[in-house]
């Protein structure tokens, strides 16, 4: 319990320190690049509508992402017990991954991955 608390305090302290230190010591010069999306590389497009509603296609992508992302959770317990499960586990996992790929093929052929 105590080590975790210490870790929390250290982490919070470092976050506060670095944000404050940056704004106190650094020079302040305008640069358009600073306002752009950091590291993700892609400009958000299309722009959100007035009224702050996201275009429907974002929901579709988010939905697909959530489903595929969560399915992979089943790989974790397998990875942990991989040695003990042996060939049996491998075959079962291949069956599982194949069924996920069937879904992927469906999404792809139905145009779920096309952006426009």
């Amino acid at each position, binding site marked *: *319990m105590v080590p975790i608390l210490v870790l929390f305090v250290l982490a919070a302290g470092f976050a506060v320190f670095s944000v404050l230190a940056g704004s106190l010591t650094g020079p302040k010069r305008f640069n358009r690049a600073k306002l752009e999306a950091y590291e993700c590389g892609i400009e958000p497009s299309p722009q959100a509508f007035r009224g702050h509603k996201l275009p*429907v296609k974002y*929901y*579709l992508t*988010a*939905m697909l992402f*959530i*489903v595929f*992302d*969560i*399915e992979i*959770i*089943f790989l*974790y*317990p397998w990875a942990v017990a991989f040695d003990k499960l042996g060939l049996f586990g491998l075959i079962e996992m291949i069956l599982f991954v194949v069924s996920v790929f069937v879904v992927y093929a469906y999404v792809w052929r139905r145009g779920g991955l096309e952006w426009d």
Partner: protein
Amino acid sequence: MHLSLALLLSALLFGVGVYGVLARRNAIALLMAVELMLNAANLDLVAFDAWFKDALHAGQVFALFVVVVAAAEVGVGLAIVLAVFRLRQTVAVDELRQLADVDPVLRVDADA
């Protein structure tokens, strides 16, 4: 850590979820409240698993499956909400009254 702390947190979380389900009319917010209820159950399952030192880890495995079930529900739920929004221009659950016990036949006439 004491088991009852986890159970108390879980009960509170579940209570918040139930309140959300009863009070919110936006379908998306309703979905989020249901997620809270599911995660309350997950917390219980994992806490009990740790408490029992369950050799089969039934609680953990169950929690894993609940996470997947929740994701699948959200996926289907969002798709339905999108379809409702496209056809009805609303996501407020109490504005969906085309199907109800009040004079269904007359209502059908009005639609046609």
